[in-house]
């Protein structure tokens, strides 16, 4: 496992691979996303209960999935960085954070827009939305910590620990919030997405999920490249100061 990781440990090699892969991710995002949008907005049925508003599912659900997926990926990167001291692992986590935070914000925002026609309120403290809100704070906390140190490597080390602590807490928080929600159950409960998803709705959903994932990889590669080069700038500057 560590052998496989070390092949990508060399930043220069990573830069080369990233530059090649990036346009493919961009292309996939546009093509698959376009197909998903077309199906979602034009070529899929409205919901029996929710009418046309169900189309918001195609931007809300992938955003929620990505919010959680990115955070988990960040935690895995942090673990790899702490255990195997892989130099790129921490950069991956750092670069993922703003993207994941965007997804979380979008999940919350589209969730509110979806909730208003369904539940009559912009915000309801249902378990899923509330857990997503806490996840948003976990992202923000990570980003705040990693930027709170003058020495960037301190920020990265501290944030990796924070990430691992956070990821252990995510299931605990989810469990607690769900439990809390059943205590204060609102009168009518409507599950976002309806009781079962029509096959015709499944395709746009999956396509959008794939498009969101390729988008994430696309932007991630851009940001990691930026971080690697920023590191080199720092090294060069230090050299110049000391020469």
């Amino acid at each position: 496992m560590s052998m496989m990781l070390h092949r990508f440990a060399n930043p220069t090699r990573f830069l080369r691979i990233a530059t090649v892969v990036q346009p493919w991710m961009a292309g996939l995002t546009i093509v698959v996303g376009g197909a998903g949008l077309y199906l979602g907005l034009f070529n899929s049925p409205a919901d029996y209960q929710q009418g046309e508003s169900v189309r918001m599912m195609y931007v809300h659900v992938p955003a929620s999935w990505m919010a959680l997926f990115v955070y988990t990926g960040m935690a895995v990167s942090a673990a790899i960085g702490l255990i195997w001291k892989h130099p790129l692992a921490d950069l991956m986590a750092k670069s993922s954070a703003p993207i994941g935070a965007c997804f979380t914000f979008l999940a919350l925002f589209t969730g509110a827009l979806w909730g208003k026609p369904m539940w009559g309120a912009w915000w309801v403290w249902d378990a899923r939305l509330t857990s997503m809100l806490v996840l948003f704070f976990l992202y923000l906390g990570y980003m705040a910590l990693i930027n709170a140190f003058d020495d960037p490597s301190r920020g990265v080390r501290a944030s990796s620990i924070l990430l691992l602590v956070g990821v252990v807490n995510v299931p605990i928080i989810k469990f607690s919030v769900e439990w809390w929600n059943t205590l204060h159950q609102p009168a009518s409960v409507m599950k976002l997405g309806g009781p079962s998803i029509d096959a015709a709705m499944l395709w746009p959903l999956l396509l959008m999920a794939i498009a969101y994932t390729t988008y994430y990889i696309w932007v991630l590669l851009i940001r990691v490249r930026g971080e690697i080069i920023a590191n080199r700038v720092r090294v060069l500057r230090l050299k110049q100061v000391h020469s």
Partner: protein
Amino acid sequence: MESIIEYFAMGGYAGYVWPAYGVTAVILVIMLVASRRMLRANQAIYETLAGSEKDGTVEKKT
């Protein structure tokens, strides 16, 4: 013509559906553009520094 207008009305939910898609697009595009900018800026600084080091146009402090 009417069916296009009807389509955009989204069965009355237009005020929710279109902003949802719209904000999603806006935020994802901004994130992409900002990340690209960050990369380009760092690349530019690096080229300046690395280039100036090679030419020796940067004074070396002894």
